[in-house]
């Protein structure tokens, strides 16, 4: 555990440790609140905050915000008094750091580079994340859960959010900080970071697995077909399902929001699917094109 304690206590990593603790705390706390509220609702009791619609910002809100600002300010001041900025060796173009890591909040993106080509992982997916965040108010017009915690009423929304944020963002950051050592190789906490470690992992494109050159025309069409099929199936099957079970819901939503939600959802799920393909089946790319690779 020696190396792990060393990594976890490095001045560089204080921010991430604090972040992990805070994320855990707030997640647990929010779920506890939600379960309590759900239980109250089942008993038919009124939930605090429900249906109020509005509350005063002065004083209740401003006071809390000010106190929080004070606490953060005190915390940061104390931190900067006690811990010096961790300087490293003189920068040298002949001797670059290994691993060369992005700022901690980008390590999730850096981890994605293992599974996608830079164009997808570095440009397309971050753009989609931002677009998705912008789109939330337009595609999620469900008023339930405003002003109070609940799980039962927003099961899907909460699960999808938790998966996207905790698993695909926070977890990837944690992996990038604590599990990726020299050469961006995977190191378990009990392993020392060995700068000379060599691992050979030959990866192949998906179509090559069945003997079709991924760079040939046939390979291109098969790969493209698979990707298109994935999205098409992802959109059509739930549509048919709801059409049968709950046509009002689809009607309320409208076609365009449905397509948008569906596209974003399946794109998000594509990440763990690709991770599985890459880590377990050693697949490099599914679809190779002259412009980008998926």
């Amino acid at each position, binding site marked *: 555990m020696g190396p792990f304690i060393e990594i976890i206590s490095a001045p560089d990593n204080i921010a991430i440790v604090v972040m992990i603790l805070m994320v855990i705390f707030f997640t647990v706390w929010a779920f506890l609140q939600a379960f309590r509220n759900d239980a109250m609702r089942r008993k038919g009791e009124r939930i605090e905050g429900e249906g109020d619609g509005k509350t005063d910002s002065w004083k209740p809100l401003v006071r809390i915000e000010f106190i929080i600002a*004070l606490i953060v300010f005190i915390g940061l001041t*104390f931190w900067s*008094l006690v811990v010096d900025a961790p300087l*490293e*060796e003189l920068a*040298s173009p002949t*001797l670059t750091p290994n691993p060369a890591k992005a700022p901690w909040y980008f390590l999730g993106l850096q981890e994605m580079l293992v599974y996608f080509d830079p164009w997808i992982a570095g440009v397309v997916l971050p753009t989609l994340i931002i677009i998705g965040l912008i789109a939330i108010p337009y595609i999620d017009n469900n008023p339930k859960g405003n002003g109070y915690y609940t799980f039962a009423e927003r099961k899907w929304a909460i699960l999808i959010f938790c998966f996207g944020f905790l698993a695909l963002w926070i977890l990837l950051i944690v992996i990038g900080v604590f599990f990726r050592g020299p050469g961006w190789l995977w190191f378990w906490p009990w392993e020392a970071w060995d700068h000379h470690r060599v691992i050979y992992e030959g990866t192949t494109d998906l179509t090559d697995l069945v003997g079709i050159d991924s760079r040939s025309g046939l390979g291109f069409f098969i790969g493209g077909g698979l990707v298109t099929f994935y999205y098409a199936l992802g959109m059509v099957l739930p549509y048919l399902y709801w059409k049968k079970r709950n046509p009002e819901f689809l009607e309320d939503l409208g076609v365009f929001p449905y397509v948008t939600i569906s596209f974003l959802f399946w794109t998000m799920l594509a990440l763990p699917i690709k991770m599985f393909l890459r880590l377990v089946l050693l697949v490099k790319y599914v679809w190779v094109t002259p412009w980008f690779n998926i």
Partner: protein
Amino acid sequence: MKQKSSYTSLLFAFLSLLLLGLTFWVIWKDEVQLRPWKSYQQEYKELKGKKLQEEYDRAKKEFDSNGNAQKLESLQAKLKAEEDFFNSREVQEKYKKLTGQLDVIGSSLAQNQKKLQETRGRFLEAEYLYIRDQKEHDKKVMQQLQGEIEELKKSRDALLERKKGIEENIDELTGEAEAIRAEIMSLHKGLDEKLAAIKGNKRTSPEIRQIHISDVGKADRCISCHAGIESSYKLSEKQPFTRHPASFIFLENHPVSEYGCTFCHQGQGRATTSPNKAHGWVDHWTEPMLRGSMTQSSCISCHGDIEGLRGAEFISKGSKLIKKYGCYGCHMIPGYEELREIGPVLAEAGTKVNYSWAVNWLQDPKTYYEAARMPKFFFSKGEAESITDYLFSMTGTTRHDTLYTDDDIDWDLAEKGKAIWRQSRCNICHTTNGKGGNHTEIHAPDLTKVGSKVTKEWLFNWIRDPKKYFPETKMPRYRFNDQELAALVEYVVSEFQDWDFEPEYEEAVPIKAESIEKGKALVEKYGCFGCHKLKGMEEMQDIAPQLRRAGTTIEGAVSTDKIGAELSSIGSKPIELLDFGKMKGKIPHERLSYVKQKLRAPRSYRDDLRMPDYRLNEDELGAVSSVLLGFTDVSRPVRYKVLAYREIERLEGESERHILSGDFEKLEKDIKCLNCHKIGNHGYNYAPDLAIAGSKLQEGWVRKFLKQPDIIRPMLKQMPRFNLDKQDGMIQGNLADSEIETVMSFFRSDLVSDDIPVSLPELVDNGTVDQVLEGKRLYDKKGCVACHQIGNAGGSVGPNLSFVGDRLTAGFIFKYLEDPQRYNPENVEPNLGFTERERVYLTRYLMSLKQE
């Protein structure tokens, strides 16, 4: 709801107090904790104040005890009388009147001055216009203004005249008061200055003090804490208040204001927040502060020649060790490129040494000779045999040993040889049984057991003409005839035997071909050609690809044509590039420890390394490391550089012109005068420096000496004799007459100094003074006898002067007495500051000291 509000109020109050506390902490940390130099300077100020006060008190006491008090009193009484007179009503009235007049004149003068300035200005304007336009009008204006100026000057002079008169009158009134005041002031001056110093010290307030040296990019704030580093008096033994040690060498020649501190000491000169940070003892600071003799490393960045540099004894020692062990044979080391391989030629090893000896020697040279220069390569017996097979195969086909028993020795001949051995002073360079080898920089082989090592035939041929076997050898050629050679060889072989020597191959055994191949591969791998000339491998060092094939270079070194790592900037090599290998965690992770460990146990980092073990002791390790760490890629501006002697020679275009020339050069090559003597920067310091021998020594004496070197020195300081065949092996002469002529003509032409006069200056005196006697009187009076011996009396620190009149020239003695350190800065003779007259007397006296 009310309750909740008071709860948040409490929280708010608590947080506010916490923030207030933090604010005080921030202020304290910033003002006190991160500015340790403040308290250091305060402490130093107090120490200095105390010291200054003590000095003042002492001076005051002295002042009082010297009767100065009475003097002061009487002066003050006098002053009072003068002042009383001046203050009397009558005088005061006069004085006021006069000063009133003076004021009036003063204001008139000021008006006058103003007018003059204006008029001059207008004149210059008119002059400019006239020069430009050439108009008569302007010329007229000019003339008119010129007239006005003259008028003004006249009236000014008149005013000044009147002023002077009035001032004289005033002076009459004030009388001597001013003069007395001045006297009191001067009496007090010393004390006043000391008081001012105390006040000045009190006025200083803590501040960051910085020395900025722009051309080396240094900003050193070390003196912010080390306030007394340049101080002339000792205030405290405690750091950081000490003075710089040996500042007469270091600070005198490298003033802090021009060099700063980190120039030599390294460290993080800009850091002021803690001693550890300032000294660079923090992670990732690549140049931690150098302390003690390790600081000498830094000399190398500016000084070209470090051997003999004052204050650089440690690196000087290291440099000599690098030369002694020939590190440059395998490593590329700047400044040592032109030196020869240190080991003997191995081309004819098979005819020279015994097979069993060579195998033993290769395995561990120490068993043959404790202080052997050859390092230990950790060869197994099989490997050593293969290498020996390879060497022997160059001249023969068998493994063979030759052992001499008592029966093989002609004892009469050996007895003759013993005399030759002694007359030839072989022991000056060679050690035998722990004796001799006084000339420590030549590194001749130890001969204690040489009889069991080499064959008679080889030894005979070697002494007859060493250069034939080893062209670059330092061994002089003694001009022995064959009988003498045979006798000497017989003596050496009979006297210096290894009684434990067990030859395995008294009967020759054929060498196997595969063993030769194996031996050759070993020789190539371990780079024996770095030190020894080997047939077929002369160009080996220049065949870089082959060397790379032969083995890997050490830890990412730049590929050079040498077998070892390049060391030209080992002192700046990033610590990350040093491969600590198996020693990781066992020794400190820093450069000095790395280099020391490498020298201490060269193969401890990895198993496949090739560097041999030189068995250096800890002090030697440190010395060599200090030189190596001085090889950095730091480049200093030209103004700091002290070029090496050979670089100066090159710059002056003298590299072509050898220091020696003509017949003398041939003679020198033969008998190696410069093995012991020094001329300029060439040669060694074992025997007297010959740079100005032509001016210093009397020709007659030199001739006589060369013919028959006198016994004026202890045995092993005596000059050996090179010609022995005068009288059947009994030693008579040294050099042949023609050779003495060669030496003399070289002395006359090249080894003279224009400084040294040919004759003494003529003294103008009345002729009644006996100059020789006067000189003797001076000799006795100045206590020369304490160090020098004349006849039977005197000390032995300086040379014996009994017959100095036969040896030295008058001009040299005369010039030498003026400044004994002129020709040798290390000379211990004090400069007694003789006048020219005294020097002539002394010289005449010393020149009168002759043998007959």
